[in-house]
Structure formats: C-alpha cells, structure tokens
C-alpha cells in the first residue's frame, strides 16, 4: 500500500516534469519602452532630456527617465526623487509626490549618508559632483516645505510640523545673518499646524517670525537688506581688526586705531539709516494675506506654482564657481474663480515666495573655498608645467625638464576644481498661496494667468473635491515656455 503511494507520487512528479515545459508560456518580447528606460540603460545625461520634456509638457517621457534614474539608487537619488516629486505634483499625483519628496528628505537630512563620497570630493583629484547630492540650503528648505504641506493635507500634523521645523533649521544654515530665516511660508505653515493642534502661544510665536521673514524678503526691502548685510559684514571685519590691534599695541591712542574707530562709527550710522528706511517700508506692507493663511476658517489652500527653477551653472577659468540665474516667466498675476461666480482677488494671495531670491542669497559655502584652492593649485601646476616645457625646448629637449613638465602637467590635469552644478531644476520660480473657505463637496475651479499688461495668457479649469478636513491642499503648476 505504502509502496503504491510512493509509485503514484513519483509517476505524477515525472509526468509533471515532462508536461510542464509544454504548457509553459513562450517568453514574451519585452516592451521596448521598458528596455529603453530601464535603470541599466539610462545614464545621468538623459536627465537633461527629461528636464526639457517636463517644461515642454511631455510628462510621460520625463517620468520614465526620472523613475529609471531614481531606481538606480545611486549618490544622486535625492536629486532624482525631488525631480520626480515636482513632476508628480504638477500632474496632481500628491500621494506619489509625497513619497518621492520623503525619499529625498531622508537622504538630504542624513549627515552620514554617502559620507565616504564626501571625504573623497574634498581631495585634490576628487570632483565635488562625486559626492552625494544633498542640496543647497534653499533646496532643503523647499523639500521640507513640500513634505510638510503634503503631510498636512493627510492631517498628519506632528510629522508635518517636524518637517516645517526642519525647513526652518535649514533656512538658518546660511552665511549672512539677515538672510537667515526669511522663508515666510515655513513659519506660516508651522503657525497653522500649531493652531490646529491647539498650541496657540506657539502659533503666535511662529506668526511673529513669519511677519519678520515677510518683511525681510519683501521686494521693496530686498536692496536695503542687501546693503545692510554688506555694511554689517564690513562692520564685523573692522570690529575684529580693532580688537586685535587694541590687544597688541602699547600706546593706546594710536592714529590707526582712531581711524578704525571713526570708520566703525560711520558704518553704525549708515546701518541705522538703512534700518530706519526698512522700518518705514514695513509700516506700508499689508500683512492680511499672512493672517488669511493661518486663519483656520480657511479650509483650503490653493498653491499656484509658476515658472522655472533657478538655473545653476559653472563659471570661472576652471568652472570652480557656481552661480544662479532665472528664466523670466510671462505670467505675473492670477485670477481664481470658484463655481463660475466667486472671484478671489489677488490681494489675498500670499506672494513673494521667490525661490530664485532664496537660492541667490544663501551666501558662500565651505566647499567654495576648497574649490578656489583647487583652481589655484591647478593654475600653478599648469604654469609650472608650461615653464618646464619652455626650458626643456630651449636647453634640454627630451631630458629631465621634459619629464618635470609632463609630471606637473599630469598633476594639473588630475586636479578637479569643478563646482557642483547639480540642482533641483523642476522646482518652480515662485509659489503663490491662496487661502479659501469652501464648503465640502465638488467645486469648479478656474485659474486665469495674466501678463504684466493684464492680457490673459493661460487658463486652467478643473473640478476639485473638498472634504471636511481642515486642510484641503490643491497644487497647480504653470510651467510655461517663458516669454
């Protein structure tokens, strides 16, 4: 009986082995798109095509490329995740956007991630671009903002607040004091979340800081703040020199010291004049849009993203400096209409969340001085190589000077001073936020974009669904091709 069972099992197994290849499906031809955009077939340079596809409105191609690059999980993963996040947000896929921004957030705010690559990049032959992309302070700020606001729309207030606080911390990681903490949106959102969690005193504190940030970054104040920052830097230098000189001299009333003191007094007077002008401007600035955003009666925040991100590129003889520029965007004003009859005036829009201003006022980084040192070294070794080459040609062709020339030339060529130009290029140029009170249910939303002459240049209509959540967040991107 037992043997019969074993025989039966063996028979079934053998039959299955014989039959299974016959019933197996023929291997299907892989989808050409999957092959083309598979991580192993994509290289970093393909991202330029994806970037241009995004701004041309060809989201499908852009998504395939950025997804493929993201799947590589290499040292640029935070960059690909941020690009993918912006792409999803522009498509209205908020869940996917949140996941992508969160992936980038985890790398950008992890000091030890890819640490070995960072150590290599400060060496003479290492390039800055070989280190992991973790973003400039403004990129960290906006990554934290997007993570926070998308968590907020899920009513995950604790984590949203943590993200906003992280953004505020990143905003303070800049060289110049006056540009620290000037991203109004982060403070406003932190204030709103604190109010939602019934922490009114914290909400009030954040609101005060938001007001300060708004004044600092207000367009009328920007040149005054920039002048004040230059004078403050000069003052700090002179005060340092004065204290050093006062320690070293034996005769206190030295002529040089008196001149330095006179300079310091003049600088202090000039700074006072600028501060008075800024305060005079502040009195004229209307802050009702700030109050609207933290007002919990407004259950809907419409975020209108416009234009193209600040563009970062290398300059200098050896590409050792990275600078920013921006492509002008034609739309300057927007009109919002709800259900074809409620018009929201631009006065209640929270504007001036200018990402180019944030990118270009972040100051010099420690890496910039390292790159300058490398560029100087490259120039010196190139000069030495040239000098030996000239000597060898005149006195000793093929001799020892030629070898020196070759050696110095090789060192010069191996030195890598190029600045890192990687940047989050799918960010918008500006973000305008419109706080609104809408009843739960379906609504028709229309946004019209106008140029500086008041001519309508773009219009967008959609149906939105408002839930009973206190935070309904809607994003709309106007990416445009410029003028």
């Amino acid at each position, binding site marked *: 009986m037992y043997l019969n069972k074993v025989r039966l099992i063996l028979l079934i197994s053998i039959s299955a082995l014989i039959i299974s290849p016959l019933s197996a499906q023929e291997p299907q031809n892989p989808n050409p798109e999957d092959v083309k955009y598979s991580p192993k077939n994509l290289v970093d*340079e393909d991202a330029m*095509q994806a970037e241009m596809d995004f701004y041309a409105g060809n989201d499908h191609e852009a998504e395939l490329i950025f997804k493929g690059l993201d799947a590589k999980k290499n040292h640029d993963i935070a960059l690909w995740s941020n690009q993918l996040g912006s792409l999803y947000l522009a498509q209205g896929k908020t869940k996917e956007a949140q996941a992508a921004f969160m992936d980038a957030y985890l790398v950008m705010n992890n000091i030890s991630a890819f640490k070995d690559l960072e150590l290599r990049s400060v060496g003479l032959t290492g390039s800055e671009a070989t280190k992991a992309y973790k973003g400039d302070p403004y990129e960290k700020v906006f990554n934290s903002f997007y993570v926070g606001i998308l968590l907020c729309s899920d009513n995950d207030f604790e984590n949203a607040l943590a993200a906003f606080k992280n953004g505020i911390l990143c905003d303070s990681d800049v060289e110049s004091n006056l540009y620290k903490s000037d991203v109004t949106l982060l403070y406003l959102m932190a204030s709103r979340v604190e109010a939602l969690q019934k922490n009114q005193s914290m909400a009030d504190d954040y609101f005060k800081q938001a007001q300060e940030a708004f004044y600092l970054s207000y367009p009328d104040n920007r040149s005054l703040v920039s002048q004040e920052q230059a004078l403050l830097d000069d003052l700090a230098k002179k005060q340092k020199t004065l204290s050093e000189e006062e320690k070293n001299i034996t005769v206190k009333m030295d002529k040089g010291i008196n001149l330095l003191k006179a300079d310091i007094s003049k600088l202090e007077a000039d700074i006072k004049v600028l501060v008075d002008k800024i305060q005079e401007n502040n009195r004229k600035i209307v802050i009702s849009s700030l109050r609207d955003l933290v007002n919990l009666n407004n259950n809907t925040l419409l975020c209108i993203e416009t234009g193209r991100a600040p563009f970062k590129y290398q*300059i200098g003889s050896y590409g050792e400096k990275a600078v920013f520029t921006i492509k002008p965007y034609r739309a300057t004003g927007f009109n919002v209409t709800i259900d074809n009859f409620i018009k929201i005036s631009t006065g209640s829009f929270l504007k001036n969340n200018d990402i180019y201003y944030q990118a270009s006022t972040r100051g010099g980084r420690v890496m910039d001085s390292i790159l300058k040192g490398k560029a100087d070294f490259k120039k010196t070794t190139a000069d030495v190589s040239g000098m030996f080459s000239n000597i060898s040609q005149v006195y000793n062709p093929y001799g020892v000077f030629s070898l020196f020339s070759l050696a110095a030339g090789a060192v010069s060529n191996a030195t890598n001073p190029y600045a890192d130009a990687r940047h989050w290029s799918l960010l918008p140029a500006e973000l305008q936020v419109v706080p609104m009170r809408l009843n739960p249910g379906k609504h028709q939303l229309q946004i019209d974009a106008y140029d500086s002459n008041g001519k309508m240049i773009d219009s967008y209509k959609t149906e939105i669904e408002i839930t009973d959540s206190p935070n309904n967040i809607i994003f709309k991107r106007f990416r445009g091709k410029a003028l």
Partner: protein
Amino acid sequence: MRKIIFVLALVFSLSGCVSVSPYVLSKNQTKLDLTKNRGVVLFTLKIKDTGSTRLLLSSFTVREANQYKVYNTLGSFYIPFISENYSATDGLYFCTMVLNRGIYRLDSFSGLTNSFFSPPYTLKADEIFDVYPNSINYIGRLDFGDLDTKMVVMTLKGKEDAYTKDVERFKAIFPVLKDKEIGKDSFY
C-alpha cells in the same frame, strides 16, 4: 614645382569650400535638417560704432550648460560670423545657431576694430538660453551700447524683445527661414 603650386592652390581652394560651419545658417542654404534633436536659435546683437572706428566681429563662443555632465566634457562651440550677418545701416548682427537640444551659455563675441594697431576685442555676454528640438526660436536682441575704443572688453548693456522687426529681417536674409514658423523664447 608646378605640382607643388597645384597642390597648394588645391588646398587653398578646398579650405574655402569647407569653411561653412554646421552650427550656423547661411544665405545660400536651401534645406534645414532639424532631425536628431537639433534646433535653431536666432538673436541679434547691436553695437553702435563711434566715428570712423568700426568693430568687426569674427566669431562667438557658446558653451553647453548641463548639470548632468562633468564640466570638462561639456561642449564648446566657436561659431563664425559670415558676411550676411551684419547690417551696417543699423549696426545689427543677425546671429544664428544650429545646435542639439539643451541649455547653453552664450559666452562672448570676438573681433577686431578697424583702427591701425587693433588688439583683439571682446564683447562679454554670459547669457543662458535653451535650444528646443525641431523648432526655430527667436530669443531677443543684445545691446552693447556705443563702442568704447579705449577698452578691449565690453559688457552687455541690455536686452530687448524686437521679435517683429528682427524676425522679418532674418527671413529676408536667410531664405531657408522664409516659410518656417519662428517661435518666441528668451534668454534667461
């Protein structure tokens, strides 16, 4: 000896034949191939000559600006000026570029003045622009103001949009553009 003279004559004549740059449009061009992700960018440059001194521009430099490529592998292009580029009546240079899709930096213009001891003269632009595949775009007019003969380098004074006037002239100068749609874009 005759053979040597013949070879030299052949070399000089052939070098003239191959001097047309693939990166510019020419007056005699009848076809425009914008396949393989190539695009055309048009812009004008204005500089006002002072007195009898005139600036004769010979070329301009364009560099690729691509964050995803290593700096020393970025393309650099020397784009020559040809006679049809210049309109002496209004001091305008009509510049054309045929490049692969991407973002580029217009670096500088090189030339000489017609004075007796003329050192090389540079107009520094440092302007970023886009090249879109299979399209022709006008991106603006660069204004360098009055020619300063005491200097050897001048920087950009301003940019303006002269789409209507300039595009009409481009179509007249370059017949290949005559029936083509020319879009409007801008420098960064």
